[in-house]
């Protein structure tokens, strides 16, 4: 009972705390790749502090959707954060960690973010919402099939159960997870709006998707939007990390194991952030209507996983 309460409090808080760090690392590595010094890795924390002290500006056209969206968005992502164990595994069957529910919590957050994009009546926000919903629609089959493949390989639909299985075995027991991992990595790139799908750096009409949607947000509301985006990125990274390399995560509730779990997650997350940054730096943005073929690569890998598992 204590362990489950600790899990429900500690897991989201930990994810909340480390997500700006990963964002900072990605930015730093990208800057280095471009030959710049870049901001320090803790810059996103300062950024959030600054935003929380600023004023909120609402457009005259904005309605309660605009005011509610940041709260709803963060709440959905925090709820999703209770479903991906990162430090220690909750006791079996105690927490709802269904993978479909997890995916649909992210869909819910996106739904309200897209509505907020349309709320102010500027064509920028509308364009962002339209592009985001179109991209997520064609990405959804990829995501679900990948999750189905993972659920199939590990024989459970609960995320905690999946991690328990990978923690008990090793990657050699589930070689097809590597294939699904490729798809998961592409999904991570799509969902966190990174190059080649979207460019998180620019505010150019031609390239942006996610940034256009949150353009109307300001002050603490924008901070909440950034926080929820950060949580989403960390969650997807955690999913990939703990499926392929769960070593270090505590299997049950004990203080020493949790400390090791937390440190090892930060290290693994930092490594993955560097990989993401290098991946981003080495690619150019793909034209919007060419993106479906990029998604098809992920779909191909997840279908291959399913076919391999069905055959052998």
């Amino acid at each position: 009972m204590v362990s489950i309460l600790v899990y429900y409090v500690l897991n989201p808080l930990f994810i909340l705390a480390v997500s700006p760090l990963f964002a900072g690392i990605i930015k730093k590595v990208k800057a280095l790749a471009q030959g710049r010094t870049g901001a320090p890795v803790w810059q996103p924390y300062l950024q959030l502090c600054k935003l929380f002290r600023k004023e909120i500006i609402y457009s005259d056209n904005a309605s309660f959707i605009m005011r509610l969206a940041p709260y709803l968005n963060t709440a959905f992502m925090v709820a999703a954060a209770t479903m991906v164990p990162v430090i220690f595994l909750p006791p079996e069957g105690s927490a709802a960690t269904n993978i479909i529910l997890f995916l649909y919590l992210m869909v819910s957050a996106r739904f309200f973010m897209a509505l907020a994009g349309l709320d102010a009546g500027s064509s920028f926000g509308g364009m962002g919402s339209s592009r985001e919903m179109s991209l997520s629609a064609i990405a959804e089959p990829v995501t679900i099939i990948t999750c189905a493949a993972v659920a199939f390989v590990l024989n459970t639909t609960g995320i905690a159960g999946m991690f328990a299985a990978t923690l008990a075995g090793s990657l050699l027991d589930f070689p097809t997870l590597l294939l699904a991992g490729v798809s998961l990595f592409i999904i991570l790139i799509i969902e966190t709006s990174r190059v080649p799908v979207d460019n998180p750096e620019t505010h150019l009409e031609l390239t942006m998707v996610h940034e256009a949607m949150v353009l109307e947000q300001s002050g603490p509301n924008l901070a909440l939007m950034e926080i929820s985006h950060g949580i989403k990125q960390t969650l997807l990274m955690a999913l990939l990390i703990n499926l392929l390399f769960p070593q270090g995560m505590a299997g049950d509730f004990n203080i020493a194991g949790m400390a090791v779990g937390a440190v090892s997650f930060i290290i693994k997350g930092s490594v993955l952030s560097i990989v993401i940054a290098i991946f981003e730096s080495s690619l150019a943005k793909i034209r919007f209507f060419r993106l479906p073929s990029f998604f098809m690569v992920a779909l191909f890998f997840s279908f291959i996983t399913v076919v391999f598992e069905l055959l052998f």
Partner: protein
Amino acid sequence: MNTTLPAISLAILAAAGILAFLRLAQPHAVWRRLSLLLITAGLVMVIAAVIPVLIQDLRLHLPLYHLNGPLVIDFYLDRLAAFFILVISLVGICAAVYSLGYVEQHMEPKRRQWLLGLMAFFILAMIAVVASGNYFTLILSWEIMSLSSFFLVILEREQAENRKAGIYYLVMTQFSTVFLLFSCLTVYHSTGSMDITTSIPANIMPVALLGFLAGFGTKAGLMPLHKWLPYAHSAAPSNISALMSGVMLKTAIYGIIRIMLNLAAMPLWWGIVLLALGTASAVFGVIYALKEHDLKKLLAYHSIENIGIIVTGLGLYTIFTWYGIELLAVMSLTGALFHSLNHALFKSLLFMTAGNVINATRSRNIEHMGGLVKRMPATAATFLIGAAAISALPPLNGFASEILLFQSYLGAFQIPSIFVAAGVFASLAAFALMSALAAACFVKAFGITFLAMPRSPEAALAREAGWSMTTAPAILAGLCIAAGAGSARFFKWAGLELTVPDLLPVGLIILFVICILFVFMRLLKAPVRKAETWNCGQTAITSRTEYTATGFSEPIITIFSPVFRTQKKLWRNFTDAAEAVIRGGRAEITTLKFFEERIYLPLVRLAMTIGRKISTWQNGDLDNFIMYAFIAIAASILLAGWWL
């Protein structure tokens, strides 16, 4: 169990209809309210009558009237029928509450009477269809249901569009009756029993099954027999659209399930057919919905999508039963049934709120709306809940039923045949696509209709609908939340062992986090200012610069252009011979109405050609006609002798 309660409740419903018709000459609001009160009272009694059946798992025959031979008007109630009657009654009560305000809104007084009278008989007939004890009662009430809804569709017959919709609907609904009649007679011929629970013998099974599928599938709006649905739903008054889409389609789903239960063993091909048809309807339904800017047609296409989801669930049920995977079979069937209830709740909610919007703006085109969230806050809030529910956002009810289907899909690797398993996984990919497109479509529907600035003078002057027209959707919205959050607890209480996540704690976590954030933001005391935000460098934002529905769905339409068969033609004039400077030009974008132009029209043309050939025989010559009669009689004697 006592049979008087059902009888009295149905009599009250009939009385409500008759009262409305009796007062055609002296229409007065008091009588209409009495009619609606009677409908509500009748439906409450119907619910009271079916709840014992649901709980105690009773099987009741209620013979009403013996006509001749096997033709008996007989009602039969079991858990399945009781469940669907419960759905019809729940939505019916809300529709009655909604109609209190809605019928007074427009149209001449006499038509209000017609609307109410037909509505009472429509609800009565739907209950009768589901409660039918034999094929005769089924066909009889099926026809009453079809005809009463046909008259409701053409209620505003002044508009040519509505007349066309009515004729389309009438033809398609008769098409469905023909197939039903054929299958019913086939079963009767082979077994000698009219009873609705007659087990279908193996030798006629494929024919009868396909006949029932064509008959019920047309009414349910399964592709490719769906074309009547968007026309009829947009032509009918909104309270009737809510009933048609929310529950009339479910009577056909009930029919399909009832027939499946009558099979000794469901064949595998049946499961595959249902899965394929269901997936196709779900995906194409939502893709067509994305293109639609008529709010009611958009919702109607989403009905096709949701019927597709339900039929997909039935297909999975059949496939898992065939392979003996009991747990997943139960889960898919529960998913299909639960989604029938959920779709009834959120779709009638959406049609009712759409009715409010259409009344307020005098337009069905969402490009003429916008900014309504400030003018109609209650309608907007309820529509938002409905939109979130239909987009399968947790913890609402749309997600609660879709996750049952997702969970059964994820179990598909237990299927021993690789080909069937791969097919189910392919269907899963399509199912996921459909679900995400539905969310995109409802961002468009809500965003363009309610948010930003009004796009027409009518929208700027829109006013909130009356209390009854906001209360009824609010009740449904409450039911949507309750059915979603309470789903897992309800399944446990009902004794169903399903591995689904409990959505109540998830909902509570979300609520809890929102409260914490709210308190936190209050403590921050961030100054709030209302001002002009970034407007892309223009001097002022007007409704002309807003993102439109067309613009919103353009990327998806471009990505799926092979489905729409979009054709873009360009004509350009140049000022110079080198064709470098454009002077002007013309562009044309056409989309192919695939089903109409490639399936329906060729069939119609074939029928016309045959008809023209036959009409040459009809030359008015008496001798010829006598010869035709002679040939017909001789042929029928010969055929009968050979057949029997």
